[in-house]
């Protein structure tokens, strides 16, 4: 099995796909970094040139005063305490809250690329993993070796998973390394709020916790990885079913884009929540954004994706081992 995976890696590297993907990610990160930098600049101009430390110190004093007042509700108090903690952290670590560090940029980048950009990059690899063997005709050589077909396919799938992990790692690394040049590399310990629940009555903040940004980032990366694996597996299935790489990619792309559109307009069509493509924005649950359809939450979305994943994998293996090759 090791040797088969080695083979697939050899081909993947020779095709230079990963290099292309790294380049695309690199260019995009540079663009977004510049955009973010511009935004920070205009903000600074608006605020004037006064020292941000003094302002922050003043805010902390204000907040502490308000906390000592006995008239505010417990819930409000909690919120104030959290923001106080945040402000104190920024001051202690010499971070301007108006200017994001590289870790914050990385978080924003991950959250925004989870439903379209990362899946797109994954598709570049997954969609031709099997179909390219058909279009080159090499599948005839591949399947006439004394190796069972399911092993051939499994080696390809393992390679896909490795490549996806690598893409996520590259995304994380590049977004940190490039944006850090402009925003500085500090801020992994910055506190961030999570644990919101969206209920019928509105936002439930009873479970809200303060997390260090690096922990939050790890969770984000995990969710992005999970989504990428699911999307990768679906493209992989299409690559097995459809011999043309372009057609397979087209179908997948249509599904992803329709997901982005659907999320904005299906709130009344409840059963749409079983589509995989409206469940891709997993990181939104961490921030407490309202889900596209009522009743969706992190575990629901993950289960839906898991079912799609399992079905896609099953279909891939069934078809690939049975199919006649012409």
């Amino acid at each position, binding site marked *: 099995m090791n*040797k*088969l995976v*080695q*083979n697939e890696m*050899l*081909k993947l590297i*020779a*095709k230079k796909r990963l290099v292309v993907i790294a380049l695309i990610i690199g260019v995009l990160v540079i663009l977004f970094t510049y955009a973010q930098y511009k935004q920070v600049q205009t903000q600074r101009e608006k605020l004037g040139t006064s020292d941000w430390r003094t302002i922050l110190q003043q805010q902390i004093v204000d907040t502490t005063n308000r906390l000592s007042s006995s008239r505010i509700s417990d819930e409000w108090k909690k919120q104030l305490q959290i923001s106080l903690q945040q402000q104190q952290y920024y001051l202690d670590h010499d971070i301007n809250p108006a200017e994001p560090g590289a870790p914050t940029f990385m978080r924003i980048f991950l959250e925004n690329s989870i439903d379209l950009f990362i899946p797109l990059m994954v598709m570049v690899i997954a969609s031709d993993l099997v179909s390219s063997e058909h279009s*080159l*005709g*090499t599948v*005839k*050589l*591949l*399947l*006439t*070796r*004394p*190796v*069972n077909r399911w092993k051939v396919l499994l080696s390809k799938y393992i390679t896909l998973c490795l490549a996806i992990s690598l893409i996520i790692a590259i995304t994380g690394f590049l977004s940190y390394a490039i944006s850090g040049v402009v925003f500085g590399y500090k801020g992994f310990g910055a506190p961030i709020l999570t644990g919101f629940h969206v209920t019928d009555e509105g936002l439930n903040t009873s479970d809200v916790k303060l997390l260090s940004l690096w922990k939050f980032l790890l969770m984000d990366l995990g969710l992005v990885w999970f989504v990428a694996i699911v999307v990768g597996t679906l493209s992989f299935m299409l690559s097995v079913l459809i011999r043309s790489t372009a057609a397979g990619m087209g179908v997948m792309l249509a599904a992803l884009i329709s997901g982005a559109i659907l999320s904005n307009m299906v709130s009344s069509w409840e059963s749409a929540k079983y589509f995989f493509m409206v469940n891709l924005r997993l990181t939104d649950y961490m921030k407490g954004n309202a889900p596209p359809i009522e009743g969706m939450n992190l575990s629901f979305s993950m289960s839906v994706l898991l079912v799609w994943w399992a079905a896609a994998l099953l279909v891939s293996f069934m078809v690939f081992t*049975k199919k*006649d*090759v*012409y």
Partner: protein
Amino acid sequence: MEKKITLSVKDLRKVIGRREIIKGLTFDLREGEVFGFLGPNGAGKTTTIRMLVGLIKPTSGSIHICGSNIAEDFKGALKNLGCIVENPELYPYLSGYNNLLHFARMLDGVGEGRIKEVTALVGLSERIHDKVKTYSLGMRQRLGIAQALLGNPKVLILDEPTNGLDPAGIREMREFIRFLAEQEGLSVLVSSHLLSEIQLLCDRVAIIAKGTIIRTDTVQKLLSNREKMVWRLDPFFKGKEVLGALTGIEEKEDGTLWTEYNEQMTPEWNKQLVEAGVSVLEMNRKMPVLEDLFLELTGGETIE
């Protein structure tokens, strides 16, 4: 002594949709023989070959390679088989060496030593580290053969091995295939739609049309008495008279006379003609065309 059977096919059938494409093929390959699979395009050659190498599942019937049934023991059967199905399609973006390495990794116990060996055998050592996309068709064909030989197979299956090669390449390929069969003792199954090729290459041949084997025989037996001799004589009528008295003749529209091909009698006929004052402008041995052979074997049925 009978040589060992390496590939055995029994009552092989394939039904696609409602059409029966392959209608019960039975044949055996023996050690050290080159077996030809002759038929027009669309006769079912490629479908049959794809069943032999495990790309297509037969609807019924059995295939044994060196005693292992391909449907039950795929690994055991394919271990002894090397093949090129249609064109040798290799990875163009990999070097020749990496292509061989790729396929060697899929075989048990095939290491770098064997890769060097087969590379030298097909004469590709100099260019083996170049990308395959820079290779000529002939080189690709040789790399394809090298790939097929990697696992020391007992049976080699080549689908149209000389397709697209130039005359020198065809000759080289033919000699190489004969070498593999005679010196290395491989059984080689070659498919072709060219009678001349099969005739020069094969020991035995199966003629296939519309999914059935019409006849299996040695090449000599199939072609004996079917070769013709073409004569161009001057003056024509005198020549026709003389030759007609010696043997049965057939007059063609282009002003030639056709007789049977007879090695013993030809010099004698020639002598008679010359003595009668007829110039022999041309004497030509003519292979039967595949179509004619088919017409004869199938009793006038046309090839689709």
